[in-house]
C-alpha cells in the first residue's frame, strides 16, 4: 500500500493522539480509583463497625416499636441510654484501661524475651531430631516480629487513641442512621430494579439481609460471651491483664478455626512466664480449650446462634484471612471471614429461591 507523505503524517498524528488519549484516560481512571480508595479508606472501618452495631441493636429497636414507640424515638432512646452508661463508667474505664495498657507496654519486652527463650529451646530440640531444619531460624523470625510489633505498639498508641476518638463519634452516627433508615435505604435501592425483576430483587434482598444480620449478630454475641467467659475464668487465677486477654480472645474468636488458636497464644505465654507450669497454668489451658472452645462455643453457642449453612470450608477461611489481610491488614483478617460468609449466605439464598420455584410446573396445563 502506497501512502503519500501527507497521509503518513496524518496517520502518525492520529495514532499519536489515540495513544496519548488512551494513556490520559488510563492515568485519570487510575487517579480517580486512587482518590476513591484514599477517600474511602477512612470511612471503611467506621462503616463496617456501624453496620455491625446496627445489626446487634436492630432487634431491640424492633421490639420497642411493638409498643408503639416510633423507630426514630426508640433508636434515639437506645443511643441516649448507651451514652449515659458510657459517661457514668467513662472516668473509671479510661483510667483502668490506660493503667493496664501502660503496664502491658512495659511488660511486653519481658514476655517476648520469655517466649523467644521457649521457642529457642524447642528449636534446638527439633533441630537435633531433624538436622535438615537447621537452616530454618524460627527464633530470629519471632524476635524480629516481636520487635516490630513492640515499636508499632509504642508509635501506634497515641494514633490509636485519636482514631478511637473519631470512631466514637462516627460509629454511633452511622449506626443511628443505619438503624433508623436501613429499611428505607434498601427499599430505595430495590426500587431502581426494572419492573420485570423487581419482585425477585425485593424478595431476595429481604431474605439475604435477614440471614446476614442474624449471622453477624450471632457471631458478635458469640464472641462477646467467649470473651466474658475467658475474662471471668482468668480472673479466678493470679494472671495479669485478664480483661485484655478476654477481649483479645473474643475478637479473634470472630475468625473460625484459626482465630481461637491465635487467641490462646498471649494467654498461655503470660501464664507460662508469670505463673510457671503449675495448677494455675493447667486451669488456664482447660479454660481456653475445654471450657471456652469445646463446651461453651461448640456445644452451646454455635448450635444456638450460628446458622449451619453460613459455615465456611477451612480452605475458604484461610483464603479469606490472607486476602483480607493483604487488603486491610489486621482488620481485614478479622472482617474477611464474615464478609465471605455473607457472600455465601447470598449465594445459598439465591439457589434456594430458584429451587423453591422451579419445582411445580405450572407452565402448561391449568384446570379450566
Amino acid at each position: 500500500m502506497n501512502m503519500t507523505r501527507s497521509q503518513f503524517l496524518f496517520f502518525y498524528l492520529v495514532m499519536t493522539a489515540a495513544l496519548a488519549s488512551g494513556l490520559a484516560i488510563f492515568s485519570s481512571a487510575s487517579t480517580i480509583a486512587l482518590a476513591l480508595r484514599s477517600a474511602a479508606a477512612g470511612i471503611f472501618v467506621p462503616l463496617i463497625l456501624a453496620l455491625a452495631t446496627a445489626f446487634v441493636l436492630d432487634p431491640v429497636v424492633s421490639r420497642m416499636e411493638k409498643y408503639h414507640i416510633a423507630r426514630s424515638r426508640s433508636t434515639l432512646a437506645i443511643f441516649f441510654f448507651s451514652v449515659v452508661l458510657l459517661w457514668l463508667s467513662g472516668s473509671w474505664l479510661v483510667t483502668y484501661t490506660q493503667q493496664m495498657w501502660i503496664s502491658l507496654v512495659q511488660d511486653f519486652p519481658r514476655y517476648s524475651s520469655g517466649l523467644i527463650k521457649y521457642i529457642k529451646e524447642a528449636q534446638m530440640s527439633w533441630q537435633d531430631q531433624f538436622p535438615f531444619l537447621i537452616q530454618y531460624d524460627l527464633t530470629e523470625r519471632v524476635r524480629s516480629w516481636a520487635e516490630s510489633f513492640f515499636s508499632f505498639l509504642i508509635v501506634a498508641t497515641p494514633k490509636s487513641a485519636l482514631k478511637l476518638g473519631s470512631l466514637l463519634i462516627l460509629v454511633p452516627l452511622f449506626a443511628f442512621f443505619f438503624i433508623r433508615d436501613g429499611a428505607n435505604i434498601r427499599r430505595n435501592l430495590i426500587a431502581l430494579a426494572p419492573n420485570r425483576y423487581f419482585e425477585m430483587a425485593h424478595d431476595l434482598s429481604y431474605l439475604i439481609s435477614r440471614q446476614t444480620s442474624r449471622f453477624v449478630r450471632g457471631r458478635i454475641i458469640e464472641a462477646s460471651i467467649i470473651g466474658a467467659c475467658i475474662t471471668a475464668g482468668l480472673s479466678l487465677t493470679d494472671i495479669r491483664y485478664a480483661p485484655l486477654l478476654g477481649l483479645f480472645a473474643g475478637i479473634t474468636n470472630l475468625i473460625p478455626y484459626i482465630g481461637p488458636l491465635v487467641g490462646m497464644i498471649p494467654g498461655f505465654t503470660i501464664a507460662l512466664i508469670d505463673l510457671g507450669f503449675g495448677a494455675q497454668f493447667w486451669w488456664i489451658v482447660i479454660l481456653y480449650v475445654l471450657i471456652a472452645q469445646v463446651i461453651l462455643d461448640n456445644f452451646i453457642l454455635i448450635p444456638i446462634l450460628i446458622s449451619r449453612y453460613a459455615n465456611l470450608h477451612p480452605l475458604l477461611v484461610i483464603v479469606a484471612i490472607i486476602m483480607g489481610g493483604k487488603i486491610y491488614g489486621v482488620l481485614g483478617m478479622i472482617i474477611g471471614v464474615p464478609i465471605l460468609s455473607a457472600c455465601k449466605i447470598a449465594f445459598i439464598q439465591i439457589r434456594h429461591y430458584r429451587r423453591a420455584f422451579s419445582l411445580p410446573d405450572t407452565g402448561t396445563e391449568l384446570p379450566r
Partner: protein
Amino acid sequence: MHNLWDRILRSNKEEESLSAFLQRIPVFSHLNNRDLQYIKTLIHTRTYDPGEIIFEQGDPGSGMYVIRSGHVTLFTRDARNKREDLSILGPGDFFGETTIATPAARVTSASCNENCELLGLFRSDLFAVAERRPEIANRILLGLTSVISERLQNAILELRRHPVSEEAD
C-alpha cells in the same frame, strides 16, 4: 399566594387520597387511619407502560398488586404458547393475593393494557410488619382471609352450578 396554598394542599390531598384509596380495597378494609399511614410506607408504587408484562405464569410469586390507574389483563398460555385472556381488571381491583402468605408460582400471567400505576404489597413487607407491628399484620391477614374465603365460596357455588361432566374427562 394562591399557588403556594395550592401546592401545600395538593400534596396533602394526594396523600389522603392514597389512604382513602387503600381503605376501599377489601384486604385493607380492617385497617384504621393510623394503620393506613404505616402501610403507606410499605407499599411500593410502580408504573408500567402499555403492553408491559407484570409477571408471567410460573414466575416466583411474592405478593399482590392493587391497580390504582389503568387496566390489567390476566391471561394464561397453553402448551402451544397460545394466549387466552381470563379477565380484565381496572382501578381498585387487585390480583396475586394468593402468593402473599406462602411462596408459590404464579398461575396466570398479567400485562398492562395502557399506562398503569400499581401498588405492590409483598410477603417480605408483611413479615416485617408482623415483627414490628403484629396487630397491623393481623388486620391485613384478616382482610386477606375474608377475601380468599369469599372467592373460595364463589368458586364452590360456580362449580355446583356448572358441574364438570364425566364425559369431558
